[in-house]
């Protein structure tokens, strides 16, 4: 942790990430107004003391909607990444540990799936499953799986032939024990770094799906959907698109910075 706070990247990432997490945890409780209440006399307004970030076409308070949407936007990124990392790591560890033909078959499949760009893959899966937050999250997780499989496999391969693994094998430990207690803990740091950066992607893809109408549905306050709903009115009140748009960027920025700082802190070669 101390290592993390040594670089400007790390400090900025940690601060931003703390703000984002705090918004996700407390947002709906500290919102000054109800996010769905209309204020007909104050429609499409810019920032004022009554409405710090302005109001939308129904006079709903944008700040309150932003705070209300934080949990769904952030938890989408975290949930999709967690699922994708779990599935991908499982596949990657199986491939890395099994080796041989199993490894070849799995990795060729992974290569094939990696040739489909992430967003395209997600769109295809969402179309099969149907829209909505839950399915969109699942789709992003599936799209992340091949990439995570490749990274966790290479992490496993790099520790598989280390002395402590060979020693455990020589002691006659079971494969499950060796993977769980010797290989995985030592292969974890690249997986964690990749996962952190992927949360940023997941937030961006989730918002994009919301924007395209394939993720969260109205009257949700998910940030991508907020941008989509604001497009009709964006010339009359640019705050309507700017506020949620910049919020998405800041959330993704927090995870990107934090992930990079984590990589530098965990990778001894990176230290100067």
């Amino acid at each position, binding site marked *: 942790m101390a290592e993390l706070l040594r670089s400007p990247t790390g400090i900025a990432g940690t601060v931003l990430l703390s703000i984002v997490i705090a918004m996700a945890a407390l947002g709906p409780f500290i919102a000054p107004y109800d996010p769905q209440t209309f204020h007909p006399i104050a429609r499409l307004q810019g920032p004022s003391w009554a409405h710090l970030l302005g109001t939308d076409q129904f006079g709903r308070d944008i700040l309150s909607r932003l705070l209300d949407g934080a949990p769904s936007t952030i938890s989408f990124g975290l949930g999709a990444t967690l699922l994708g990392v779990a599935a991908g790591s499982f596949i990657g560890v199986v491939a890395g540990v099994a080796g041989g033909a199993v490894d070849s078959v799995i990795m060729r499949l992974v290569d094939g799936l990696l040739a*489909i760009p992430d967003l395209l893959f997600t769109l295809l899966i969402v179309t099969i499953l149907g829209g909505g937050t839950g399915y969109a999250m699942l789709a992003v997780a599936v799209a992340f799986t091949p990439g995570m499989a490749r990274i966790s496999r290479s992490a496993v391969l790099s520790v598989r032939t280390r002395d402590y693994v060979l020693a455990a094998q020589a002691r006659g430990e079971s494969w499950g024990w060796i993977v769980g207690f010797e290989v995985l803990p030592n292969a974890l740091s690249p997986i964690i770094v990749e996962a952190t950066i992927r949360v940023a992607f997941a937030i961006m893809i989730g918002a994009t799906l919301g924007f395209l109408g394939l993720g969260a549905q109205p009257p949700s306050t998910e940030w991508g959907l907020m941008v989509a709903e604001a497009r009709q009115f964006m010339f009359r009140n640019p705050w309507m698109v700017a506020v949620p748009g910049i919020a998405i960027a800041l959330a993704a920025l927090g995870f990107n910075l934090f992930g990079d700082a984590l990589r530098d802190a965990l990778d001894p070669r990176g230290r100067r």
Partner: protein
Amino acid sequence: MTLGYLVRRFGAVLLVLAIVTFAVFAVTMLLPGNAAIMILGEYGSDDQIAALEKQLNLNRPWWEQYASWVGGALQGDFGMSLRLSLPVTEVVLPALANSAALAAVALLAVTLIAIPLGAYAALHRGKPADLIIGLFAYIGASMPEFVTATLLLVIFAGPGREFLPAGGFVAPGESIIGFLSHVALPATALGLVLMAHISRQVRSEMSDVLASDFVRAARLKGLTERRVVWRHALPNSLAPAIAVISLDIGYLLGGIIVVEEIFAWPGLGRLLIYALENRDLPVIQAVTLLLAMVYALSNLLSDIVIAAFDPRVRYG
């Protein structure tokens, strides 16, 4: 770089594409809804539906459908669009050309701006210029295309300040000025993320190269700083940048979907969204396969370019 390497690498691309055809086909098989019912609407009689299913080969087992689809695709025949009553090829090829024009402008602009920017940052490590470029790169990498695109629209195409058209397309053959004014905003929206990646990659490579022995030797030899940078440091930093550019083609292809939709650019991305919304299976299959093929081939190309560029890379 040997011939054997090229052949093997090309074989790997073919294998990847074979897997992609399978994945694409599986995905479209899993799509809910019967295509025959989709075309005829709710009121088609059972006989009509059965006849159309036969015509579309929907009543045959999946492996026969797959074989006939791949067989057709190999001859450039992707069947008929279910919605547009046109052969898929006739719909997809013009869209591909339009997307390629947009992607080419974006990539060219990004390369021309990002490489000098990254090199400049590396030469001024730790100075304010470096930090500003780095911050810009981080923000660029954290903005989804739809946010950038929407903000660009607000800033440059709003009522009262219509600097650039808010959407649409003019063929370069028709009017170069018209094409450039229409391509400017979508290309910027697409390019921002790439610019961030590539400038960061060039900066980090260039920093390593600047600290290397051969650059020190060149300096000790008394070469001018300009010659050291342009003749020795920069060329040696470019191979990894090319690798990143080719990986970024994947982003570009994803980003193009959203950006084309927002700016009403008649390319593959817009076509894909239309096809997905209307369950136009043959079009979905063709577009997905095409995008994957572009991605796989660009990766192959970058491997070849890197091998040709960098004498240290030897693929046995």
